[in-house]
Each structure stands twice: as C-alpha cells, then as structure tokens.
C-alpha cells in the first residue's frame, strides 16, 4: 500500500458540482473526500461529478468510499457521475458493479450535459 496522497479540487459548472481527484483514493482519503463532497454537493446542485483524469492509485478501501459518496448523493436526491476513468479504472467499476450506480461519461462536457 502506498502512502496516501489525495488532492482534491472543487468546481461548479451550471447545475453540477465537480470534484477533481488527483493522486490516490484509499481508505485514508476519507476526510478529504468527505469535505470535498460536502462542498461540491452544496447549493442546490443536481449532480456531483467525479473527475478521475488524474487518478493514480485506488485500492478496495477507495471503492468503499465511493459507495459512501453514492449513498450521500442519493440521500440528497443528487446524481453521482464520473468521467476521466481510464480502461483499468473502468474495469474496476465494472468488476464491483459500481458502473451500474454511478453514471460514467467519456468527457466532462458529456457529464455536465447529463446533469442539466
């Protein structure tokens, strides 16, 4: 297991809150992810979009965290979307069947468009 280095940026485009995830997503990322999600999902937005373009490492603890984000989004009647997943991470979403609950898009434009 690597030392966790998660960097998160939060943006807003239209009705969507975007979380730019850089580095690692592991169980140790929980406080940073929770804080960023709270910011990204505030202000009456319709969807939270996770940008995985700069994701470098994710273990199964990270998958657990994505499940918690999904629950929070559902509770707030918001959609949870993702883009920027390379083939490897798309396969992990498929393996864990997260792709059936988190909508995956090829680009930011497509994800933001779906949030309208």
């Amino acid at each position, binding site marked *: 297991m*690597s030392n966790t280095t998660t960097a998160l940026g939060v943006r807003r485009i239209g009705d969507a809150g975007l979380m730019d995830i850089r580095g690692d997503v592991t169980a140790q990322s929980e406080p940073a992810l929770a804080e960023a999600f709270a910011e990204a999902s505030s202000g009456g937005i319709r969807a939270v979009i996770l940008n995985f373009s700069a994701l470098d490492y994710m273990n*199964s*603890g990270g998958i*657990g965290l994505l499940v*918690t984000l999904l629950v929070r989004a559902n509770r707030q009647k918001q959609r949870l979307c993702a883009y920027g997943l390379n083939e490897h991470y798309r*396969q992990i979403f498929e*393996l*864990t*069947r997260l792709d059936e*609950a988190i909508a995956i898009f090829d680009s930011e434009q497509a994800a933001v468009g779906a949030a309208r």
Partner: protein
Amino acid sequence: MTGRDEAYWAKPVRTLTVRTVPADAVNANVAGRRVAGAAQGFGQLWHKRFRVRLDGARVSPQEVIRVWKDRFGDFWPKGARVFLPAAGIAPGEIGLINAGVPGAPTFATGILVIYADDVSFSFISPEGHPFTGPITFSAFDDDGTTVVEVEEFTRASDPLWELLMILPFVGGKIQNAQWVGTLGNLAAHWGAAADVETRIVCLDRGRQWSQAKNVWHNAGIHSAIHAIGAPLRRVARRVD
C-alpha cells in the same frame, strides 16, 4: 495513464467460474452467478470496522498479510470452512465457503478475490450471499505496532437475509462475531491479546426495494434445494 494498482485488481467477469472443487466441498451458489456490490444489495448499508492491535508482537504488516493469505481458513472461528484454490488469495481467484450445523444442509456460497497486495486483500460475494459489498482485510503500522483490520461496506442482499440481520442473536451478530473471532485468532497466533475494537455505523437506513427480487438467488434457499437433490445426483452419477 496506468494505475500503480493495476496488478493488484482482478479483471471483471460477467459470471463466476469455479475451476476446481475439493472433494469434500459443496460447490453451489457460485458458478454462473454474478458478483453483487453494495449498490446491488437490498438492506440497510453498514460500514463495519474491526481492529486488533498486535501489541508486543514483532511482526510487520506484510508478514501478517502473507500468513493470513496462506492460512485464511485456519483463522476462522469453528463452524465454517473456506476452500481456496491452489493459487491462494490472489486477484481473480474464487473461494468456496461451506457453513452449517450438524443435521442441517450445508450452507454453500463463495467469494471472489477482487484485490490483493502485500498489506491488504478484498473479497466480493456472488448473488445470493447473505450480504453484498466489498470486505477488505488489511494490516498497517501504527507507531511501531501492527494493527490488523477487517472493513466492510455491506447490505443484506435480499429481504430474507435483511430479516435475519435485524433479528437479535442471529444474522448481523453472527457476521460480526465471525470477524471478531477471526481477528482474535490472528492476535493469539502472534501472542497478542484478542482485544478487538469494533466500530459499526449505519450509512443508509433505507432499503432498496428495487433489489427485493434478489431473493430468487438466496443461497440459503438454494443450499437447501441442493441438499434435497443430492441423493438424486448420486444415483445419476452411478447410472452414468
């Protein structure tokens, strides 16, 4: 960009394939089934974390995980057996689980190893298993002491399992006792006190009624049917 974790993850599979079955194992409710993640479950979503500190033990997290992978079933409390392939706990490998009490049909299910590195490994279960979602087994260093952990994000897979989970003394209690017992046995193996810390949080109190249909895959029901059909299968094998 390729993730540093690529070698640690299993490849996705549409349905599970059991390649070898030990002679004394019941192989049911695994082959041909899909895996089920937390999003596919029915019941309340729980985040459970069980930890034990190996105080006084001079063992690294890597060594704990190496031994745990090699002898996973040995550390389970009595009453259930796990049959792992010769390759052991490695990404993509499938294990069979048999549990039960004397006189009752063997409850048969299994696991798929979805992730394994040198300090952790994770399982996900097939449809019909009592719960859906990932379970991660890990070890880490905390100020010179190795801490061993089991963490799960799970829901009961269908209404029947959910009913069992919320009944006193069964279901969730048995599941929790399984990991408390396992960590206790691990601690004892390295001469540490079996002082297991438990943290259980309900992340979602709602039930996913759209997943109530999962009951058709219920491994308890199918295990009973499998047991009833055993004499017929024996006769069929003799005829062949």
